């Protein structure tokens, strides 16, 4: 759990693990996250052989397949730099579950060492870089959806809220039942589409009821799910990754 986590001094360099969903659906979020890190004076290494953390196979109970996928990450992120991940869910997989995944295998020690170096993005910004944000954007109201893995796995809900709280012109609005799952759950949405749809419809409705124009989340799975539903409901609420949101609000563009 995060409360007991010991954070290192500010490093010169970090690894960035981009995650599949950022890569496929929200590449701008990955770029924004790296910009945020660089602006703090940290060098960002993006190993090109990186793939997926292995979570889909792990969650479905396919441990050997999950290990096969995860091994690529052990190789790519071999040096002793912190690994920053713009997702509570993928960070949780690597930080919390890799030790279990590789237990009693030849890679156990390597996996444990890697797991200890994994940080969720907001956690890293707050606790390691102690970032101070200056809001340059116009006044706005946003809703935040913290993923279940960020909230209950990595325990970084307060870090998400704290970073948005640093933005002077942003009012963070709390939808009802904000702690409740959006119903995505990876393969859950595919296996139980009826239940999943029910959950996300309610989530989207409660967010829309707050009257915000923007939804922010640190996890692309939830974002895709909720923003998709909001679009379906014709709400006009825009969904964005927290990295994109933070970068855009604090970045002095030349335009």
């Amino acid at each position: 759990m995060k409360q007991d986590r010991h954070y290192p001094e500010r490093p010169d360099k970090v690894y960035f693990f981009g995650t599949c969903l950022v890569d496929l659906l929200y590449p701008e979020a990955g770029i924004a996250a790296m910009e945020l890190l660089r602006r703090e004076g940290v060098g960002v290494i993006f190993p090109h052989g990186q793939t997926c953390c292995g979570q889909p196979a792990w969650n479905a109970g396919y441990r050997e397949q999950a290990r096969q996928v995860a091994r690529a990450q052990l190789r790519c992120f071999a040096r002793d730099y912190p690994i920053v991940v713009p997702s509570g869910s993928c960070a949780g997989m690597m930080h919390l579950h890799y030790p279990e995944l590789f237990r009693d295998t030849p890679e156990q020690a390597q996996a444990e060492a890697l797991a200890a170096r994994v940080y969720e993005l907001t956690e890293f910004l707050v606790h390691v870089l102690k970032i101070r944000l200056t809001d340059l954007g116009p006044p706005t109201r946003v809703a935040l959806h913290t993923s279940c893995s960020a909230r209950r796995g990595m325990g970084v809900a307060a870090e998400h809220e704290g970073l948005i709280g640093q933005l002077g012109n942003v009012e963070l609005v709390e939808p009802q039942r904000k702690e409740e799952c959006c119903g995505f759950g990876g393969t859950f949405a595919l296996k139980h589409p009826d239940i999943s749809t029910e959950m996300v419809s309610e989530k989207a409705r409660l967010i829309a009821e707050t009257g915000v124009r923007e939804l922010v989340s640190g996890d692309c799975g939830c974002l895709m799910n909720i923003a998709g539903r909001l679009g379906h409901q014709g709400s006009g609420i825009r969904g964005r990754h927290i990295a994109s949101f933070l970068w855009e609000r604090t970045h002095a563009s030349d335009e």
Partner: protein
Amino acid sequence: MQVTSDFQGRCREALNDPQIRRNFRFAMDGLMSKRRASLGDEDEREGLRARCAAIRANALARLPDLLEQLERNCTENGIRVHWAETVQEANRIVLDIVRGHHARRLIKGKSMVSEEMGLNHFLEGQGIECLESDLGEYIVQLAGETPSHIIAPAIHKNRQEVAELFRRKFPDIPFQEDPEALARSARRILREKFEQAEIGLSGVNFAVAETGTLCLVENEGNGRMCTTVPPVHIAVTGIEKVVERLGDIPPLLDLLVRSATGQHISTYFNMISSPRREGERDGPREVHLLLLDNGRSRIHRDAQLIDTLRCIRCGACMNHCPVYGRIGGHAYGSTIPGPIGSVVEPQKEGLARFGELPTASTLCGACAEVCPVRIPR
């Protein structure tokens, strides 16, 4: 196109029933906020959870020894101990006791193990009346249904539906919707039954090895009636319910009740340590303890699954589960629904029947966050 399974069919049915959805949402919201209010202090809550998880883990680590100790101490106290490997054996043992007393009427307190055994159905097939006396269980029995929640069996019904059920079943009683009036009617009917029943049957929340004591937590007093009014009392429970010491009970009871209903203490807490003794004026003449395995020792041998036996059946994981809250308990089709049911039932009843249940989880972790005995670790 994917073929819809029975489970998915039942889910769809529940999702399309706005009344069911409203009833569950309303009830679960109430239970969640009560738990929150009674366990507000994080340090206290987490301290208690750690203690209770350790107590249960210790009991499971020493299970065979503790069960033998329990048997010895119960026997010494005059409680007759029976072991059943399967539900068939368990039903048979109950039937033998009932037959041994030429009994025709049995009255029951709430017991999920008796649901697991299908005891009502079995005994009724043998011509023995088997009446539920917990109000929720009574409602469910009247309606010909099964419990939809482990601590609140009739939670899927609202008060209008209960009133309607009573009107159909008891045309002589004037129609009423007021919950207290409904409870009064049920109480009147049940009182009479308590006087007639030859056997009382109950579950067990904790069985204390050190003293041979059976602990029963309840709110309605029907549990106390079942275990004291009829001349014979049969307690049925799973072998995992044993704990080592009497001193384990206060923290477990405390956290069980607060996790389950947000109460600070249950209305009744019964500690049964023997049949009626010489010179005592009440209590049953005979007490039996039936310990059911039904797959539990197999789960106990599995290093990955053993923790699931820590469960103290508080229901908090159900109350907080966003899936359970939407599809309700009946959709699962298992004795125990919700998160813990989805893990335990496939182990007990087989993957063919319940292998799909574990997929009905978004892995959101809301259950793990509230579980008083920290399942999963």
